[in-house]
Each structure stands twice: as structure tokens, then as C-alpha cells.
């Protein structure tokens, strides 16, 4: 249904009759051509909502190109913001309200099935009578295609209104959109203005003022023309909260851990960690080194770690592949090192700007030779902060490589979380420069634990050469037959020791039942929400979420034994067992599934998708139903 609202004279507004929707959760998205500012608009709206006490989860809609041709449906750019009364842990199912800067980007979202059947769409209408007849035809075709839907499409003369206020309305139209959203959702306008001033603090006052002008125009237009409002009550909390995205949280967490050197090479979606560090790291005595390539970034980080405080390197899938040989060297020399891999779609260049969890097996087994090391995956943006402190401590204590597997969903999602209560004890101590006691060797492995004391250059009496060659306790090149066996055992033993210090994962829901879902990484919120819905519907389903992938958390076999069926939910590829040629023997399963089957000998099944987007709780809910005995009770 298309509602073409009559244009009203500015001096004679007919304020429409208002209807307010009360809801505990609502999802809005802003989409435009790249460069028109829909992402900025969405980020500002999400931040304002978080600051007003709503739960928030944002997801970027982002093409790979910086400035692809205009009105290209495949290049839609924007932001999707789900807000709620309580904490929001995932992006939800489908969108309730859309602001679209042209009909082509709207069609992209429509064809993806991203929108609720009854979604409200605020659509820029300058294209309807555009001077280019082809564009007019495209507009008519799009609206014709949408006429069969139940969307409520409201045409908005964004460009026309803005053109009366500023010379070039393509700059700043996003602030008009923000104004409309502020009015619809009853946002605190002072707070919005403050956030605009903060976001554009490096720009001139003239630009900030222009943004205010457009914001006000959007508020005024919505107030005068829209007959609905949405009220998502916020829950006030005494707890002090911060709001940021996962890459910012990783950057801040790294600082909180006391690490002082990061080496990287630009790669999407990891780069923004370094953007954030680039702005502030120096104040903390930190250096971010942009290396000539991914390999060098790993080498600089490893060299720095070798000589003192633990350093880290930041990358995404293709960069992880390139760093492989250095990672093996880190394991062999037992030099602590932290690697952050913000996963994207693969293989090869894959989906550079989109989410996938396909690097787990490469992260674990990608280094030739046996190279045991630690892998941790944060499940929330809050965990992105804290994981860096844990990673640094484990790297140091166990003289090992620790990989942190984040992903695009965490990297670009914005979410409020309890403000970390910083502790100086989280930071690395200054490198030990005291003399090494006589007779102590650089790899004096404790034969039970494999642990040994690290010697740091500058320590008198500790001189030795670390080497990637097989070596003995004195770091001497191995020329006898048992040394390699012993060294391999000692490096491997450390993981078993670490595993003994971990606690069994918590089961969300009943401790036993028909179905157990197992997840890792950013899918936690969507899985939790789906399981809660299913349990509310009386279904016997529980879930658990792993943070440690290497070593795996203890107790899994025992937990799995209490459920009739266990399956992983992941964002990586697995064969559909119904497809031709696929048998139980040759089926390629989800990446965590491989590990769980190998380690527990349980018949773990999986449901995985590689759609380049986060999982929807609704889809997981359907999976739960389909995998319960006889589909469970209706």
C-alpha cells in the first residue's frame, strides 16, 4: 500500500492524528548509496538510543567499494539498529522501519527478505519525477513490484526540503533522516545534538551548524507529517555503562592489558582496531606499527614480544594465512604473542565486509607441523574488551601464541555494556631484567606442565639464541632423536594444563533434554534468544556457548551425553545432508562440529549458513523445531 502524503505548506501544518506503538523491541534501518551518510546516521541513532538507556545492537550494511555507481542495489550502504527495553544481544529478525534514500537500495533490502511484512518505509521521492526518464521508469517499476506487499510506504521529500535550506542537500540529508527518527522514537534532541557535535568535533562549526539545521528540518517534517510514533521504553540502570563497537573494545582492552606495541597491515574488517589505536595509543606509551605487509606485521610483533612486553598483531582471514610461518615460529620459540583475527567471509578475498566464522580450523591447524596454541572467541562486544586482558595473561603465563577470533558482527556492531572497572593488575609488568640464575636454561621445561621461565634480552647470564629449529632445553639445535619428541610434548602439555584451569561451560536452560545447541563467537545473542523463545513455547532445548576453542572447555562429553541430540549453530559452510552425493561419511560439517566430534566421539550434528549476515533468532527457532523429536509439541 502506498500512501502519498499531500505536501503541506510550511506555515499551515496539519498535524496528523497520532498513533503510538508501544513495544519492547524495534528494528530500524537507514540505507543509501555509499557516501550519503546512512551509516553515520544509523550509528548516531544507535548511540543516542544506548545513551537513553535502551538495549542496542547495530549491524553495518556495507559494500566493498568506496564509491560504487549511484542507485546500485548491490552497493546499498547503511546501518541496521535494533533497540529494546532490555539488553539486546543480536540483530533480531526483520526490520520494522526503513529510511531509504532511493528505491533501488530499498529493493535490495526487500529482495533479501530483510524487511518485516508490515514494515514502514520512509522513502525519498525525488526520483519519481527525476529529469532522467530511465530513473523515473526504475522508480515506477520498483513501486509496482512493491505494490503486492503489505509495507506501508511513505514518500518523503527529503531532498526537496533540504534544498530549501542548504546549497547541496546530498551532504547532510542523513541528518534530516536522523531528525525524523528522533521524532518518531521520541529521542532527547539535546542528546542528539551533543552526539552530532562529538561526532563532527574535528570539522568546522559551520558544518556542525548545518547538521543541526538539517536535524531540525527532519524533526519538523516528521512532526508535521507522520501519524505514528514508536515508544520503546528504556530500563534505567544504576550500573555505569559504556557503548562502543567490538573493534573499539578490542583496542581499549589491549590498552587495559598493558600491551604497548601493535603491528598490522590494513585489512577489512580488522583495520578499524588500528584506526582507534592510532588516535589514542601514543598517550599510553603505545606504538602502532603499520608494516609493509601482513608477514612483517607478525614479525615485528614477535620481535617486540621477544624483547619484552607482549605485543599483538591484528588481521583478518587472508592476513592470517600470510602470517602462518611466523605463528609457527612463535609456537616453536615459545615467545608469547597475541593475534587478533577479525573474521570475514572466505576463502580467498571472499566477503571482505561481511560476517563469517570460517577461520576456526585454519586458525587451529593452519600452521604446518604441530603447533599447539590457544584460541579464544569473544561472544559479545563486552567480551571483546576483556578477552584481550585474558589473552595477554595466558600468552605470558604459558609462553604461547594466543589467537582471538572476533568477527565482522562484533567488529562493527555497537552495543552498551557495563563499564569495565579498570585494574592495574591487568597490565603486563615491566620486562624482567634481573640476572638469570646459573644453571637455569631458556627452556627448562617442568616435565609435568611444560612450563618454563622466559629469558628476555638484557638479562645478564641469559644469553642464548632462540630458534625455529627443533631444540633442547638449552635452545641448542636438536641433533639427537628424542629431543623433538620431548619438545613437542612440552609445547602440547601446556594446553592440557590450561584446560585443567578452565571450568565447564554453563548450560543455558535445563541441564538435560531433547536438544542442545552449541555455538561460539558472535552468534551467542541470536542463539540465546531463539532458545528462550523455544523454551517459552515449552520445547526441551538448551544451549551452551564456547569461548575457548583451543584447548576446548572441559566437561563437554559429559554434558552432551545428557541430551538426545547435540548440534552446533555456526556461520560457516556445511553440506546439506539432503543434497546429491552427500552421505554421513562424506558430509563436510560445521567447523566447530569437526572439533567436537573428534574430541568427544559424540554424534554432533550442525546447522550452518554462509549468507554474509548474522544469524536471525527466528531462523534458529525454526531449526530447533525441525530438530526436536517429531518437531516437539505444537
Amino acid at each position: 500500500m502506498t500512501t502519498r502524503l499531500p505536501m503541506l505548506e510550511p506555515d499551515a501544518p496539519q498535524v496528523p492524528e497520532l498513533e503510538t506503538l508501544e513495544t519492547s523491541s524495534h528494528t530500524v534501518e537507514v540505507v543509501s548509496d555509499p557516501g550519503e551518510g546512512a551509516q553515520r546516521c544509523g550509528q548516531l541513532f544507535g548511540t543516542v538510543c544506548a545513551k537513553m538507556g535502551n538495549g542496542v545492537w547495530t549491524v553495518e550494511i556495507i559494500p566493498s567499494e568506496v564509491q560504487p555507481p549511484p542507485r546500485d542495489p548491490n552497493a546499498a550502504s547503511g546501518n541496521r539498529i535494533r533497540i529494546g527495553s532490555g539488553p539486546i544481544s543480536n540483530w533480531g529478525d526483520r526490520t520494522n522501519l526503513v529510511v531509504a534514500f532511493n528505491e533501488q537500495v530499498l529493493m535490495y533490502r526487500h529482495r533479501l527478505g530483510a524487511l518485516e511484512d508490515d514494515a514502514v518505509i520512509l522513502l525519498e521521492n525525488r526520483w519519481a519525477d527525476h529529469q532522467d526518464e530511465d530513473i523515473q521508469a526504475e522508480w515506477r517499476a520498483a513501486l509496482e513490484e512493491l505494490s503486492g506487499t503489505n509495507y506501508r510506504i511513505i514518500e518523503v521529500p527529503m531532498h526537496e526540503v533540504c534544498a530549501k535550506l542548504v546549497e547541496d542537500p546530498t551532504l547532510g540529508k542523513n541528518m534530516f533522516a536522523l531528525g525524523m527518527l528522533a521524532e518518531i522514537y521520541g529521542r532527547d534532541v539535546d542528546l542528539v545534538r551533543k552526539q552530532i557535535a562529538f561526532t563532527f568535533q574535528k570539522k568546522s562549526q559551520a558544518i556542525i551548524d548545518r547538521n543541526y539545521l538539517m536535524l531540525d528540518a527532519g524533526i519538523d517534517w516528521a512532526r508535521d507529517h507522520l501519524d505514528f510514533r514508536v515508544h520503546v521504553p528504556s530500563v534505567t540502570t544504576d550500573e555505569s555503562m559504556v557503548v562502543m563497537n567490538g573493534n573499539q573494545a578490542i583496542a581499549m582492552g589491549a590498552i587495559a592489558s598493558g600491551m604497548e606495541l601493535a603491528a598490522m597491515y590494513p585489512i577489512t574488517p580488522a583495520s578499524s582496531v588500528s584506526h582507534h589505536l592510532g588516535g589514542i595509543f601514543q598517550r599510553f606509551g603505545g606504538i602502532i606499527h603499520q608494516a609493509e605487509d601482513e608477514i612483517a606485521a607478525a614479525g615485528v610483533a614477535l620481535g617486540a614480544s621477544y624483547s619484552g612486553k607482549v605485543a599483538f598483531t591484528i588481521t583478518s582471514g587472508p592476513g592470517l594465512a600470510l602470517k602462518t610461518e611466523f605463528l609457527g615460529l612463535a609456537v616453536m620459540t615459545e615467545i608469547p604473542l597475541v593475534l587478533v583475527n577479525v573474521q570475514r567471509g572466505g576463502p580467498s578475498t571472499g566477503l571482505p565486509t561481511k560476517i563469517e566464522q570460517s577461520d576456526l580450523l585454519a586458525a587451529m591447524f593452519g600452521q604446518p607441523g604441530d603447533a599447539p596454541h590457544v584460541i579464544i572467541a569473544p561472544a559479545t562486544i563486552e567480551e571483546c574488551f576483556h578477552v584481550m586482558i585474558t589473552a595477554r595473561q595466558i600468552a605470558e603465563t604459558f609462553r604461547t601464541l594466543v589467537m582471538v577470533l572476533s568477527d565482522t558482527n562484533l567488529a562493527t556492531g555497537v552495543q552498551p555494556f557495563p563499564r569495565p572497572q579498570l585494574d592495574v593488575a591487568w597490565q603486563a609488568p615491566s620486562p624482567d631484567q634481573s640476572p638469570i640464575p646459573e644453571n637455569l636454561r631458556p627452556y627448562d621445561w617442568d616435565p609435568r606442565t611444560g612450563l618454563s621461565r622466559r629469558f628476555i634480552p638484557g638479562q645478564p647470564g641469559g644469553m642464548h639464541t632462540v630458534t625455529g629449529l627443533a631444540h633442547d632445553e638449552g635452545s641448542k639445535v636438536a641433533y639427537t632423536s628424542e629431543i623433538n619428541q620431548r619438545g613437542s610434548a612440552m609445547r602440547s602439555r601446556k594446553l592440557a594444563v590450561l584446560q585443567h584451569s578452565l571450568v565447564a561451560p554453563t548450560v543455558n536452560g535445563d541441564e538435560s533434554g531433547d536438544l542442545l545447541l552449541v555455538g561460539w563467537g558472535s552468534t551467542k545473542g541470536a542463539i540465546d534468544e531463539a532458545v528462550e523463545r523455544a523454551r517459552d513455547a515449552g520445547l526441551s532445548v538448551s544451549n551452551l556457548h564456547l569461548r575457548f576453542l583451543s584447548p576446548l572447555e572441559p566437561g563437554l562429553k559429559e554434558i552432551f551425553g545428557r541430551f538426545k541430540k547435540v548440534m552446533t549453530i555456526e556461520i560457516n559452510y556445511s553440506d546439506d545432508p539432503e543434497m546429491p552425493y552427500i552421505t554421513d561419511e562424506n558430509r563436510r560439517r560445521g567447523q566447530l562440529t569437526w572439533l567436537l566430534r573428534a574430541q568427544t566421539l559424540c554424534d554432533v550434528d550442525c546447522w550452518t549458513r554462509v549468507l554474509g549476515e548474522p544469524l536471525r533468532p527466528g531462523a534458529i527457532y525454526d531449526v530447533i523445531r525441525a530438530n526436536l523429536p517429531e518437531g516437539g509439541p505444537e
Partner: protein
Amino acid sequence: MSTACSLLQVAGEHDREFSMSDYEGARARWCSGCGDHSVLASMQRLLADENLPPEQTVFVSGIGCSSRFPHYMSTYGFHGIHGRALPLATGVKLNRPDLNVFVVMGDGDCVSIGAGHWIHAIRYNVDMVALLLDNQIYGMTKKQTSPTTPQGYVSNTQPQGSWLPPINPVVATLGITNASFVAQTAEWIPAHLFATLQAAHRHPGFSFVRVLQRCPHFTPDMFGDAPKNPDSVQLLVHEDGIDIKALESRYEDRVRHDPSDLDAARRIAQNEDKVRIGILYRNASLSTYEETRRVSSQTAAEKVAILNEELDRHAI
């Protein structure tokens, strides 16, 4: 130099005297007659002469015959991976400017698999000595063509003779932005080798030294008759470069070359009719990367305070 030495003196290190034996590590396992032995001895002599505390000195290497070098020293050492000694060394020095850092690479290491790092290390200009021990062949993997192997030279990978003309590492280095110290020397002229290492060590910046090095096992005929015939060697001499009186009677072909003259250095380096050794270029005025990136350190408590300010910006 050096900044490191003067700092150490403040720390009371001046009362420790080191001799060559203080730097001797495991017994070298290079072939008899290998030029690496000569470089090792010169290096141990340099460290003793400069009285560098072994624990304040790090040798970083890649993979290959020459990269075993750190094992034969008794300083700290990092025997890394093929071609990647320079990033490791950059990390060490960036994190610990107080350490003396030496890098030992072969021609496969530096000019082939690690060529990208080599170019960028020159540009970073980190204060370290980078030695290219150039025997113009892959020795450890048994006589494969390297990027510096002369055209037509028969190897196991190119038995018909090397197809391509070699890269001249000195010419390449002199062409990179921020080249700071570029020298060429030969392991069979120990006095010259030592003087070159000393100048490289004392230079505040990235000191690139190509050491012409014989491999008696696979390429005894490299460098023409230069190892035996002094007339095939030309010394580049200058009061700001290397000028060793004791070599004058044997090496009659001496040319004055001012190491501050980059254009002349490039012309000389390109001319390959003779083995030319000496300091081709030196510019101590370029800032080093670790100076450019120097940050003032903060205590743990200060960091917490600043991070709390940052968190305030994200507070709800």
C-alpha cells in the same frame, strides 16, 4: 656510536671489560674455508673493541648457512625464518631501543624471499647493522640460483646457466628513500671487513653492508680472480670513509669517494667491472624510526587514569 653504549656507561657497565672470547658461542659448523668464519671473527673482535655487553646485544637472522650466525655468538640471538630477519629485528629495536641489534642475512634471505622487507627496512631507518653475506648462491639447500648469481652461472635449478642478470644489492639499496649507510666489503680482506663493520655499528641508523663472501663448496669461482688478485679490487677511500694505510701496498687501485655524494655512490655501484669496496654512502642526519616513533612511557596507574578518560567518552 652509540646511544646504547653511553646509556650503559651511565648504568655502570663501563667497569666490565669484554674480550673476544666473551662473544664466542657454539663451535661454528660452516664448511672449512667458508667466508662466514671470517665475518664471525671480525664481529667478535668488533664487539670486544666496542665493549658491548653480551646481554645488551641481539643478533637476528633468517634461514640459510649465514643465518646460523647467532648460534655461534654468545649474545642474545633470534634465528628466525627465511627472509624475515628484518621485521623481527625491527620489532626488537622498536620495543627496546637500548639494545644493540645486528642482522645477518644471506642473498636468498635478503634479496629474494625477504626483498620486500629489505626495501622497507631501508626506509624505516631503524638503528641497526644489517649484513648481507652474499655468496651469490643458495648453499644450505645445495646450489640453487640466487638473485645475485651471475648470468650464465650453472646451478642445480638452472643447469643451462642462470637465465637472468643478477640484482646488484648495493645499487638497489642506494635507490631507496632514506638510505642511510651503504657499504660493500669482502670477507677475504679482514682489515677492511672489520673497519666496515665498525663504521656500520657506529652509524646512527640502518647500516647496510654487503659482504662479498666465498662459498668454497659450491661457488669457489665467484668474484672472478678478486680474492687472489688485488688488481681486481678497487678500494674506495676517504677520510670520512675507510682508509687503511696497511692495505695500500697490496691494493694499488684506490679511488677517492666522498660517502656524502649519493650520485657518485650510485655511479660507482653500477660499475661492475671490478670488485669495489668501501663506504658508498653515509648520511647520519636522517632520523631513525625508533626516534620518530618514540613515546613517553606511562605507569600502570597513569594508563588506568587515561583509559578512564577514554571510557568517559563512551559512557552512557
